[in-house]
């Protein structure tokens, strides 16, 4: 649709750069800027989806509801636990895998492929696989039975449900970040290690004083994007537990979904959306700053 329209605009005498930007600008304005602003307005409203005329502004009333909403507080707590639990584990495990990959070995491509594959699969499929894996008759319980450990409903016990989902998330994400770290490692000049070795540095010392400092920018970026992604955890719990048992795996985005599309409480749902926005916003700012130096006149890498 947009190409035809912009050609029409070209004939109307718009400067070429305006024509080039027009399709993007239209889509961006209609399906990002407008919903984004509308979402903010909704947060101050009692929006009636069945009779928009009956909607009214309620000031900060919706925001005040957050503090007394026990489901929200539980979802907030779970989301923070999820982020704090998965991001460091994924990062350290990815670093370890990347270090392991650095040594020469047969079948490295197969190893890289096996590590990477889960990260390009739909989270719906991954979540289903693990729902089965954790099920009472599933593979995990079968394996534990061999070790003499009794059967456990990993996703039906409130104490183990969230950690089980977190473990799955680490499994699904670790390979992707390991490959990124591995790429960062290969960019480090060999002679730096040779110099460190001449100075008598062992494997541990050269890791601490050569490798880690040099991949620090990559490390920071990985931490930030994984944190932003993890604050949005939804599909996992939607497919595996629907937030249960007893809200033990309820997350902010699941609570947002339930509030908006099960209770049709759009105004309050927008307020919940904004807490996700603010929480990950801090990390977004860091990420954007990392990208920004390349935006200047010397934009080329």
């Amino acid at each position, binding site marked *: 649709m947009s190409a035809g329209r912009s050609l029409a605009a070209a004939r109307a005498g718009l400067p070429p750069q305006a024509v080039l*930007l027009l399709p993007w600008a239209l889509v961006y304005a209609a399906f990002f800027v407008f919903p984004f602003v509308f979402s903010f307005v909704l947060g101050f409203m009692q929006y009636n989806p069945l009779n928009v005329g009956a909607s009214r502004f309620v000031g900060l009333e919706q925001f005040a509801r957050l503090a007394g909403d026990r489901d929200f507080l539980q979802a907030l707590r779970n989301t923070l636990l999820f982020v704090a639990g998965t991001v460091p584990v994924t990062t350290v495990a990815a670093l370890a895998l990347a270090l392991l990959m650095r040594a020469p070995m047969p079948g490295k491509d197969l190893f890289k492929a096996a590590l990477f594959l889960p990260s390009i699969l739909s989270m719906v499929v991954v979540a289903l696989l693990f729902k089965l894996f954790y099920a009472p008759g599933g593979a995990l319980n079968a394996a534990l039975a061999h070790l003499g450990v009794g059967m456990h409903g990993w996703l039906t016990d409130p104490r183990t449900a969230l950690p089980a989902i977190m473990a799955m998330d680490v499994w699904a994400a670790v390979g992707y970040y390991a490959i990124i770290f591995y790429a960062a490692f290969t960019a480090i000049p060999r002679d730096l290690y040779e110099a460190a070795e001449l100075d008598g540095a062992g494997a541990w010392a050269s890791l601490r004083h050569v490798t880690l400092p040099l991949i620090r920018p990559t490390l920071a970026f990985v931490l930030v994007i994984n944190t932003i992604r993890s604050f949005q955890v939804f599909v996992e719990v939607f497919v595996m537990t629907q937030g249960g048992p007893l809200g033990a795996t309820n997350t902010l985005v699941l609570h947002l979904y339930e509030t908006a599309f099960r209770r049709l409480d759009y105004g309050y749902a927008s307020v919940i959306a904004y807490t996700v926005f603010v929480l990950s916003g801090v990390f977004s700012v860091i990420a954007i700053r990392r990208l920004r130096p390349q935006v200047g006149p010397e934009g080329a890498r």
Partner: protein
Amino acid sequence: MKPARALRFLALLVIVAAMAYPLAWMLALSLRTPDGTSLRFYRDVWQAGPFDRYFLNSVVVTGAVLAGNIVVCAMAGYAFARHRIRGGRVLFFLVISTIMLPKQVILVPMYILMQKLGLIDTYWALTVPFIADPFNIFLIRQYLASIPPDCEEAARLEGAGEMTILFRVVMPMIKPALAVVAIHTCLTNWNSFLFPFILTDSTSMRTLPVGVALLAQGAHSIDWGHLMAGAVISALPVIVAFMIFQRRIIGGLTSGMTR
């Protein structure tokens, strides 16, 4: 083999097994039917699922979003890289900012907007909002900034218009960037769940991930055989593409992450 090397090799084998095991399990369950190994579950979900329709929808949506992104993002990326734009830096900063924002913020307003436009449950709702992915604009702009504008200027001197230059001169030059755009866009949209789920409500408009997720919710007790067959159908195109283009996909999705 030295012991350290053997140990490392063993560790790698264990890890590969841990990564591959759940996928092998998925395949095994989808093929193990009451009457032995057969494709019966596949036939069932393909016809009654109806996964033939979900598959078609996923192909149409992913294809349309990809085509849209190639055109729209090439145009915008070219403009940001090569043209003087008033407020261009601010605009490009806005593009970058949107890459990092949680999309859930616009979920509810997007739903209301599509409802008011009467587009819920149409291909329009599943495609148009996603044809200007800011990450793609960023990629193309950065790639263009790294190559000199000589060819374009030569074409311009010969009197070629901007659209001709973009499609005849620039597009062939930025093929590597467009390949990354294609990988990123296809994977994101093929696997996308939340927005397609919210923006459709009839069985005939669901995409594969939504169809699979709903199959998992529908029954009182889960019918794993059929469910895994559905999961394999939705994952197989990705796995096959990955087997063929492994290096390009890994390279494309991780490039630019290390700086």
